[in-house]
């Protein structure tokens, strides 16, 4: 049984990232899209923590910031979602097409 190396972490993180991206791009429910965004962020966090084994504690500190940021982002995202639901009575991302021109 070979030891768990940095590479293993990176593979797991990459897998997590791809899962997140696929979730963001394919799911229609905005709540799930937001959860997928959390997956992407956590993949990044995993990377940062993994690299901190090599280059010191900076990566872990940065990961803490990203978690905080993720919390804020989730709050804002859910706020927009609720406001949107009140107007349109839906959380289907396909029906949100206001962002043009």
């Amino acid at each position, binding site marked *: 049984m070979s030891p768990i190396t940095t590479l293993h972490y990176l593979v797991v993180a990459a897998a997590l990232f791809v899962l997140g*991206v696929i979730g*963001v*791009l394919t799911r229609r429910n905005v709540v799930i899209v937001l959860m997928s965004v959390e997956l992407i962020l956590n993949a990044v966090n995993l990377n940062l923590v993994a690299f901190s084994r090599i280059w010191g504690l900076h990566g872990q500190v940065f990961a803490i910031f990203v978690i905080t940021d993720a919390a804020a982002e989730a709050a804002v995202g859910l706020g927009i979602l609720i406001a949107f639901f009140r107007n349109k009575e839906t959380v289907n*991302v396909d029906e949100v*097409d206001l962002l043009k*021109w």
Partner: protein
Amino acid sequence: MFFLEHIWLIPLLPALGATLMFFFGKRLEKQTVSAVCVGTVALAFILSCGAVWQYVHTYPGSQPFEKVMYTWLGSDTGHLNYTTHDGYPAEFKAQVGFLLDPLSSIWLLFVTGVGTLIHIYSTGYMAHEGGYYRFFGYLNLFMFSMLTLILGNNYAQLFVGWEGVGLCSYLLIGFYFHRKSASDAANKAFIVNRIGDAGFLLGMFAIAWHLGSVRFTDLNAMARSGHYRIGDPVLTAAALLLFVGACGKSAQLPLYIWLPDAMEGPTPVSALIHAATMVTAGVYMVARSNAIFVLAPTAMKTVAIVGALTAIFAASIGLVQNDIKRVLAYSTVSQLGYMFLALGVGAFAAGVFHVFTHAFFKALLFLGAGSVIHAMSGEQDMRNMGDLYHRTSITHRTMFIATLAIAGIFPFAGFFSKDAILWQTWTSEGSASLWLWLIGFVTALMTAFYMFRLMCLTFHGHPRMSHEVEHHIHESPKSMTGPLVVLAFCSIFAGMLSWPHSLGGNDRFMKFLEPVFAKETGIFTEEGKAAQPAAGKKEEEHISGWEYGLMGLSLAAAFVGGGWAWSVYRSSDKGYAEPLEAGAKPLYTVLYHKWYVDEGYDYLVTGRRRLGNVRLGVLGLGDASAWFDVHVVDGLVNGAGWSTRTIATISKWWDTWIIDGIGVNGPAILARILSYPFRLFEWGLVQWYALVMVAGLLGFVFYYAWK
């Protein structure tokens, strides 16, 4: 000095009476109304007598007494400063002030005196009429206005009274306002007077502009200072304009037309306002302005000629009228003509004297006519009268005295005043004096004729009324006959106040007035070109033989005229013949229709005459102007508007389609078209954007991995 100091009470008392009537009259008993209204006027008469008595005794030189109450128009702060026509600084200022001099004394006495008598008479005459308090309220208001007019110390205050009497005249002519003819007559009087008033106002302004004051004492001093030359054009214009005002108020040609119609009012009103007092306001105003008039010989000539023409013109109409009050109305116009003739030839004192005597006998005639109408149950047509003398003996006798007075029979009042006028017309200088005298002389003959005709038709001959009316004939109550008797007494003796020199008298009345007019005589003789000398003083001694001759002539005229009428109408029965109608039918027709003057006014002024659909005269001219205005002026205006609108429409089209369309919207449309392919990328769906981003990312990754 109580009466002089409290002279302001004289006009105020009737004003108080009028105010009481207007506010409380409806609730008062008739007796209370009579007591208040007769009382105020009687008290005013007593105060007037007191004031004049004190004035005569404290001012033996007859300099005017002036009591200024307060400044009414203008102020002492100099806000109304202006420069006169000659460039002198002046300030417009009119006071409420009272001026008592011989001229206003005389007016004061006979206005309040005759006014009191007529008020008393009215209590009898109007006893059975509705609106009793209204009638007396108006009468008192009239007395207030008339006294303001007389006592005013400046033209502005005089004008207030002038308008006030006009208003009261209007109200009283239209007293029976439910009768269309009465309200029409009231309107006619008011409107015609307004024309005169316009002249008066302009004359007043011209005087203020030229002389810098409207106060009589100032004006007299200035006009007599010798600073202004005789014939001064502005003063001439001012005098002529004032005379236009006098023509309106005193019923002279061509503005006399309202006075005969004014007979629609109750008879005491005709007596007080349209015979004795108000209509002499024009004479008063001209006499008051004598200092200005003598500087304007043209105006004087105009006054004399208009007066003479009015005298004979109105007398000629009076010859054939059948309404008893209308005959008297034309007689009034004619007598006013005499007064203006006197003023115009410079015989101011004689004119004023005639006003004075006329006030008594004409008021008496009207009141007598009122008494006759009262007896005749309202009938005014003399064709339906006759034989009243034994049933209304007091009325008959008093009216007979008045007739003798107006006809100029010695020694009744009219003889002295009329003779003074004729004599002074004769002696006045100027080319027309003989003609003016002749007109006055013929008028005197006519006067005697129509007055005796009136007396015969009314009181003598055969009764021509219906039995119903005849049954009701009765002498009037004491309240009516009392004033008749008093006025008859005055008609006999008033003239003797000025018993002429030539008959051994001392001319007291005229001497009393002389200080008011005396200075002009001085100016005339100094300048040496006296166009219209006052009273022909110099000739008096030389040609007093002429004076007796003329006196005899006018007496003869009175007897001839009166006797002729007596012989013709003495025993007139139903369907009696008018001698003039038999002798000169066309002339009779013309006179009967009053020279067609009212019809002429219809053609020229009132717009009642039409040619097809077009009104004639001034109103027709107005219609033509209106047509011109609507079709030509407004057409031009509308044309300008239309062309503006058209240009604006084109301009708007250009702006919308060319400026906005091509210049402003064009680039925008272009941008829109060109931007179309780029806009296709913007779906607005978040996940597509994310997909593109991921694809780009992968692209970069693969690119670098490949490299």
